[in-house]
């Protein structure tokens, strides 16, 4: 299980980093999204992987880490997911505006001679 997740994080991050370094704005957006999947999974994995652990407290109202899923990384990731949506939205609009102003979709606003 851990190995699969680790490899998944690696592949997602690699794809994201590769796209971050590309010259087209849309590539960078997709890259950021992929990278945020990787980072969210990474943060989540810091609470260790637990299949089938109850995430919500039982009737007793108390719990410990041995039986329950770690809530802290989950709370962190939950906000991170929402913020990454906001980031994608803002970046998308900025790139659209930039395309409108410069007439191209290069990250620097002008085509670089190869």
């Amino acid at each position: 299980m851990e190995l699969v997740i680790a490899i998944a994080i690696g592949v997602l991050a690699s794809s994201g980093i590769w796209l971050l370094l590309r010259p087209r704005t849309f590539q960078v957006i997709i890259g950021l999204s992929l990278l945020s999947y990787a980072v969210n999974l990474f943060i989540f994995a810091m609470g260790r992987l637990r299949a089938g652990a109850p995430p919500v407290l039982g009737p007793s109202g108390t719990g410990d880490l041995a039986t329950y899923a770690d809530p802290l990384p989950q709370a962190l990731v939950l906000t991170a997911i929402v913020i990454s949506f906001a980031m994608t939205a803002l970046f998308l609009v900025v790139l659209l505006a930039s395309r409108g102003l410069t007439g191209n979709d290069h990250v620097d606003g002008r085509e670089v001679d190869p």
Partner: protein
Amino acid sequence: MPDAALYLTILIALPFVGSVIAAFFPTNARNAEAWLAGTVSLTNLVITIMFLPSVRNAKVVRAEYEWLPDYGLNFIARLDGFAWCFSILIFGIGFLVVLYARYYMSPADPAPRFFSFLLAFMGAMTGVVLAGNLIQLVFFWELTSLFSFLLIAYWHHNQNARDGARVALTVTAAGGLCLLGGMLIIGHIVGSYDLDVVLASGDRIVSHALYLPTLLLVAMGALTKSAQFPFQFWLPRAMAAPTPVSAYLHSATMVKAGVFLLARLWPVMSNHEYWFWIFASVGVLTLLIGAFMALFQQDLKGLLAYSTISHLGLITLLLGLGSPLAMVAAVFHIINHATFKASLFMAAGIIDHEAGTRDVRRLGGLFRAMPITATLAMVAAASMAGVPLLNGFISKEMFFTETIESHGNSVLDNNLPYLATLAGMFSVAYSVRLIDQVFFGPAATDLPRKPHDPVIWMLVPIGLLVLICLLIGILPGPTVGGFLATAVQGVLGPQLPSYSLAVWHGFTPALIMSFVALIGGVVTYFTLKTYLSGNIEGAPVLRRLKGKRIFERAIVILSWRWARRIADIVGTTRLQPQLRLLLLIAMLAALWPLSAGALASGALALDVDWPFAVDPSFVLLWIVGCGCALGAAYQAKYHRLAAVIIMGGAGLATCITFAWLSAPDLALTQLLVEIVTTVLLLLGLRWLPQRLEDTGVRISFGARLRRLRDLGIAIVGGAGLAAIAYAVMTRPQINSISSTFLERAYSEGGGRNVVNVILVDFRGFDTLGEITVLGIVAITVFALLRRFRPARVSVEAPRQKRFQNQFDADRYDAPKAGIAAHYMIVPGLIMRLLFPVVAMMAVFLFMRGHDAPGGGFVAGLTFAIAFILQYMAGGARWVEARLRVLPVRWIGVGLLVAAATGLAALVFDRPFLTSAFQYADLPVLGRVPLASALVFDFGVFSLVLGATVLVLIALAHQSIRIYRAMAAAKAAETDAIEEAR
């Protein structure tokens, strides 16, 4: 004096308070401003005069407040005789300048700015002279530079004013920085910044190894401020300021701050030959150069500026001599120079005002036109020249006497009497020139205005100052003797050297020097008169002395050429290299802890138990997920639509992983965000360039190499992240604060869903910050899109749509819109029916959030999707005709509700965002938890809903806007054609 500390504080604080008040008056409130500023200066003048008995005989008044106790720094206001004398100058001349400025400034000039800055300067200058601690002195010192800058640039529409202000600030503020360095060293040597401790330190500074650097740094501060050679060039350029500013800052007070500082540190630093060499030589050079240059100025204020430089040189020279008698002469000349030079500046301002020019050559015969101004200016100029029975004569004679005395028997010292007489000659020559060319000779005929005496209130300040010149000049002992003694005792202590203040001392060598200077000066002037009236600008020989030009070149090199070269070498405006650098630094930072031998010790070994137990479907999930990620990376350039869809696959894999690994909240959020993001990107695709075709052009070797390098970075980055993740996951968890949350979520937060309790209760403040960011982003997106101009090629309908329309038109007879609606009729109906269902779902998710997976974030996103579905089904116009969608208001409500919940806790005397909860038995619903966190969560819900809807709708509206814009453009075009016909 009772409450001395209070009154001392008032002295410093009152001008600043006045400055703030003055800033709020209406633009044309000249009278109110003048009354305010006049009252402030007069009040402070009276307070200062009342302090006289407390500072006599070298007594000191102190007020101390804690400032930075951790650094042993206290705010100390300290008044001794010397500071008292300066305060009288600051407030006395300040009052006269305010009176003068009331009539000098034209009604068109914004009065609040002028008087506000002037009062602030007054406060800063008071801060300098009353500073009882070295750091505090430097602080106020720099403030005076700052307000001088603002006042010089008062008429900022004038290029000269802006340049002059910038040069003045650069020179004096740089000097101030050096001074700070010097003060820090003094503090280091003495062990305290308290001025009284420093002054009591005896010879410790002089005998310390760091004496020379200290002296040089302090000298840089003092010499720049007092415009001494080679920094004199800023003062003539500062004459672009309004004349009241020149009279106040650049002759009477601020430029005296340099010599004030030298006198302040004189008791502990002057007992060394370096002191003599630096200040005596700089002083005598400035004295000569200033006097010589002044003679050749054609601008009246320029002449006065160089004369000021020369007189400041004289004072610096006296302080450099290092004898107590020279100190007496220096203090006396500070007082005298302030009186006659301020009155001369004011007279020059009147002449400029009345005649419309300050060019000495164009003026002439003004005595007949403005007799009062002329008489007053002539007396003041005579005092500047050192004519007997005026105050300038007495201090100048003390100066001559001092130059004859021996101070170390060096070449400089032996020649001082001759140099002093020479400077005195020039001083007489320019004074005579001022009187002769401005007030006598043939009356000027081509003046821009017809000159006459101004209103009486402009003459009163000059008259008062000239009266003081005369009184001191005729009866020095009874008038100024006591004040002078008090001032000098402030520096030298109670023991005064013996000196006599009298007009007549018999036929002394000094008297002979005075007469030589007077006669020589008159002769020099009349010899040069024709030459001076000619077409010359600046002094011969010294014209080449371009301190100004050197300064400008240095500034250009420093702030422009070097800066640009460095930016060229180390900077880039391109995003890709920046991101690459950022990634490399991040990777190095991750490697850093590993370099310390951790790898070798095996503590980070990655143990894989092979074969390991894992659900094959989970492996399959991630085979698909990884394939999607790679596919998206591959397709993002040529096939954006495919990339968006494939990326969604990777997102779904992530989502299922969350669900699999006991994180239902995350799975829910991820799923919803995935939907919203996909819709968002699809809306954005419309405005991106046409799909690029892979043209199959061969890629250059360089580009291939770059890609290989990027691929390397990507693989290393991903592998590193995977290795770290694996290493952490395979090790047991230690000391997590999570258990605290698990234990307290129910007992203290009243919720079983710990993740939600963390978000809305334990870490509610973070969530408040986060939703604020979300709101800001949404409004930014909205604002950016309001002015959105798509690229020209994207304005037309996309190719696919045109193709579809053409196809429909060929096949059916019905209007196009009808056909498009037909395609959507079944899914559209389903979507419309889904609205209440999805909305109910959102409410459900919200209500259960505290005890089961759900919550504000998830509910907000769900509700937003309900809206988006309607837009997709019916189009923006259809929805907005039926529903009032006010996302900006929802954002506002959400933020207010969340903040108000936090504030409510304050009412119950609890910290911000403390939550309360209890259970209530409601009919139908049964036992329901009621926590104040639920209200907070409602704020989150409302904001997330508003932000998401706002972003998506703003983007969706572009399609409508663009058709409207196109129609408008087409209509305009038709009109133009019609008109052309």
